[in-house]
């Protein structure tokens, strides 16, 4: 081996004075960092991914994890990552895979946008004492209301409104498949969605029968692999989502490593056990926007026009024009996934380099749809790197109807964002199918944590709206006058169509 051993990513250290040899670290570490020999804990730091499972379980706080104890010689161009990627590829000749979202240090636009509040000239509204409305309807709306007078002179509704999804908070849970995450994780998220009056996506892994009790809160996905898709699946969902692409890997299909395709996953997906599930890059029945329209309408036809159909695309350079095409396809909502979107497994070259930030994508899509007079044809759902209630509020003010959260919901269940989801070893029982690990995630607890998160963010959004003198979310949507850009350049301000601070 001419390249030899590289410096440790993490150094794990144990305070033997503190350690009481309970062995919980040994039992909990699925990566094999700890072992007990002769009444002493031995450590293989090289196996550590910093998932912090051991830290969370150690009763004596005896474990310490240090990042990069010995680094490479510092170099501004040939960073440690640049060098290590080359070592790995020189050894394997393969595409590099990674989990979770974009790891490059791009500036986060959300953090350069500030929100408004009322002072004197208009009163802020106190959500503790006044109604505050976050209810949102996702779906197509008619452009105008048509009425007629019945023989008795009463005004009657002529307009018919196609089915919309009613959500009590603008926060929805995005598509993470059973396969990428465990059944317990899926059950926890589904229960949280139902408890919060919102919806959750199935991802492209089909719908396990354990989720059937929550099917009224599920959006079933049809992706290019068509895993798990049949009429029963389509009929169970509250809505159907066609996944064209995702923010973590625009232009390519899904990856589920064979390690994660256990018996149950293979049944739900309708694929052989242990086989890699690699979805094709395009849908092989969609080679143009007209083909998309046919698929949207076929799915509606199959479900008797009772269910909204969403189309999800990655935020790419031409996202606004693509969304305008989707708005004309009979779709009810367009989901835009920004380049910070998470994933269970993606080629890191895509994850880190392809696509655009969700803030700019939503601003561009909303502006384009309005300019073409078709904003009412579709709802806009934004996702990809939404970390807190301020991000949600800012994205809605930029023009989104609602957001999908993914990574944030996983973190609420314990995920430490170690980025090793693709190895099937998640010691939190989230991104794994190993029964002993999955058993660590208790849906009774995890579902409460996720609904707590949604509840807390919803409260914060209410407070932010009240402070801005707004008591209904419709009046926040697209209200870019209530945003200001801080230290953003003029080009970016014009893309976002917001003023700078002080203006």
């Amino acid at each position: 081996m001419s390249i030899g051993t590289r410096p440790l990513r993490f150094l794990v250290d144990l305070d033997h004075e503190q350690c009481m040899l309970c062995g919980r670290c040994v039992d909990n570490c699925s990566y094999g960092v700890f072992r007990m020999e002769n009444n002493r804990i031995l450590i293989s730091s090289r196996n550590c991914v910093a998932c912090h499972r051991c830290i969370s379980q150690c009763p004596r706080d005896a474990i310490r994890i240090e990042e990069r104890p010995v680094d490479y010689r510092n170099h501004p161009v040939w960073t440690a990552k640049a060098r290590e990627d080359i070592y790995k590829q020189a050894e394997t000749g393969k595409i590099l895979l990674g989990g979770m979202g974009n790891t490059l240090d791009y500036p986060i636009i959300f953090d350069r946008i500030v929100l408004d509040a009322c002072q004197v000239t208009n009163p802020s509204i106190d959500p503790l004492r006044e109604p505050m409305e976050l209810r949102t309807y996702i779906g197509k709306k008619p452009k105008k209301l048509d009425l007629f007078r019945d023989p008795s002179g009463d005004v009657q509704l002529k307009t018919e409104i196609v089915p919309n999804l009613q959500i009590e908070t603008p926060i929805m849970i995005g598509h993470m498949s059973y396969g990428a995450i465990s059944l317990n994780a899926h059950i926890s998220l589904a229960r949280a969605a139902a408890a919060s009056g919102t919806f959750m996506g199935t991802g492209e892994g089909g719908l396990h029968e354990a989720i059937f009790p929550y099917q009224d809160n599920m959006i079933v996905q049809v992706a290019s692999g068509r895993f798990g898709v049949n009429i029963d699946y389509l009929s169970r969902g509250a809505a159907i989502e066609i996944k064209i692409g995702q923010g973590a890997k625009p232009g390519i299909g899904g990856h589920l490593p064979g390690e994660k395709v256990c018996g149950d996953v293979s049944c739900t997906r309708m694929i052989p056990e242990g086989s890699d599930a690699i979805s094709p890059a395009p849908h092989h029945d969609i080679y143009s926007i007209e083909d998309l329209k046919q698929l949207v309408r076929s799915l509606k036809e199959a479900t008797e026009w009772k269910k909204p159909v969403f189309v999800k695309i990655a935020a790419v350079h031409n996202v606004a024009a693509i969304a305008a095409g989707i708005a004309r396809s009979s779709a009810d909502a367009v989901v835009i996934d920004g380049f910070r979107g998470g994933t269970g497994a993606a080629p890191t070259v895509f994850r880190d380099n392809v696509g655009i930030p969700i803030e700019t994508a939503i601003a561009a899509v909303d502006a384009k749809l309005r300019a073409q007079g078709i904003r009412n044809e579709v709802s806009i759902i934004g996702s990809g790197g939404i970390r807190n209630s301020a991000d949600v509020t800012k994205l809605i003010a930029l023009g989104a109807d609602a957001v999908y959260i993914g990574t944030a919901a996983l973190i609420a269940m314990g995920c430490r964002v170690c980025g090793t989801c693709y190895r099937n070893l998640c010691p939190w029982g989230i991104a794994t199918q190993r029964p002993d690990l999955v058993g660590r995630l208790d849906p009774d607890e995890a579902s409460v944590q996720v609904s707590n998160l949604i509840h807390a963010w919803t409260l914060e959004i209410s407070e932010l709206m009240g402070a801005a003198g707004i008591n209904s979310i419709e009046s926040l949507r697209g209200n870019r006058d209530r945003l200001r850009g801080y230290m953003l350049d003029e080009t970016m301000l014009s893309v976002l169509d917001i003023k700078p601070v002080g203006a």
Partner: protein
Amino acid sequence: MCGIIGVIDRHRELMDGSTIRNALAVMDERGSGEGSGYVAYGIYPDYADLFAFHLFYDTLGQPKTQVEELLENWGMIEHDEEIPTCEQPGMRKVHIPWRYFFRPNRKLMLHSSTPDDDIVTRVVMEINTTIPGALVFSSGKNLGVFKASGWPREVADFYRIQDYEGYIWLAHNRYPTNTSGWWGGAHPFNLLNWSVVHNGEITSYGTNKRYIESFGYRCSMFTDTEVVAYLMDLLVRQHHLPLNLAVRALAPPFWDEIDRMDGHEQELNRAIRLIYGSAMMNGPFAIIVALEDSIVGFSDRIKLRPLVAGTHEDRLYISSEEAAIRTMEPAIQDIFMPEAGEPVIGRVIA
């Protein structure tokens, strides 16, 4: 703050401007002397079928030539003159108010079902956004806005509004925050036959503006009030909603209330909120809107600004202050406080 008042006589009996001048002045506490204005309907009976344009000119040279050229391109000026004014001790003639009686050439807008209105809207937007030194602040038929920077009495006397007789009057006493001292920033705001007086600040302005602009309107007056006129024009003239439902779109019931409504009523209100969510106005406001045959007053959904109404014989009064109504009609008995968001509508009979 701002104080507003409006009156309508259901038999179109004419009132001169002197009483509303005094009523508006009762609310001087709500203003700052930097903007007052009046609008009266029925004041130009000799030109009743022509659009009465009121403009502010900064000079009579270039801007006036450009405006007249534009008007002649789109129709015919049947008559024009300077609006008579009488300078007041505290008020100089900063702009030259001018009026045109204009007949649009509807052949130039054949594709439209309302060619006259569309031509006038287009001409107004074009003058206000492209001709420096000219501003159209009134463009309806048989009606006129009179406004300027100053206290209500000064502005009234400046325009001699006691010489005008109308069956509808709206008036506004301004406490400016956004654009101080600018004559164009005073209310009423008018487009076609829509006039608006507004006390408040619309926190949903950004949403409303983006919504209305997607229907071709252009917000050019640097005030959130104009958006009310455009929204009413869209909902009532273009989408044919009855006045009460248009108001419901702008200040709709809460979902809790809608959820408790009966089937048909619930369906209608849900549809209004779904379709016109972006037209909903948020923030504190009390507004009176006038059209040639009606006025409607309403407040925001939680009534963060005062609004009181009263009726006496053939007249409906709506105002920020009861004292202002009593100044106009000392004998009035029937005074009431409308609920938050509930419209008070007065119409002429035939």
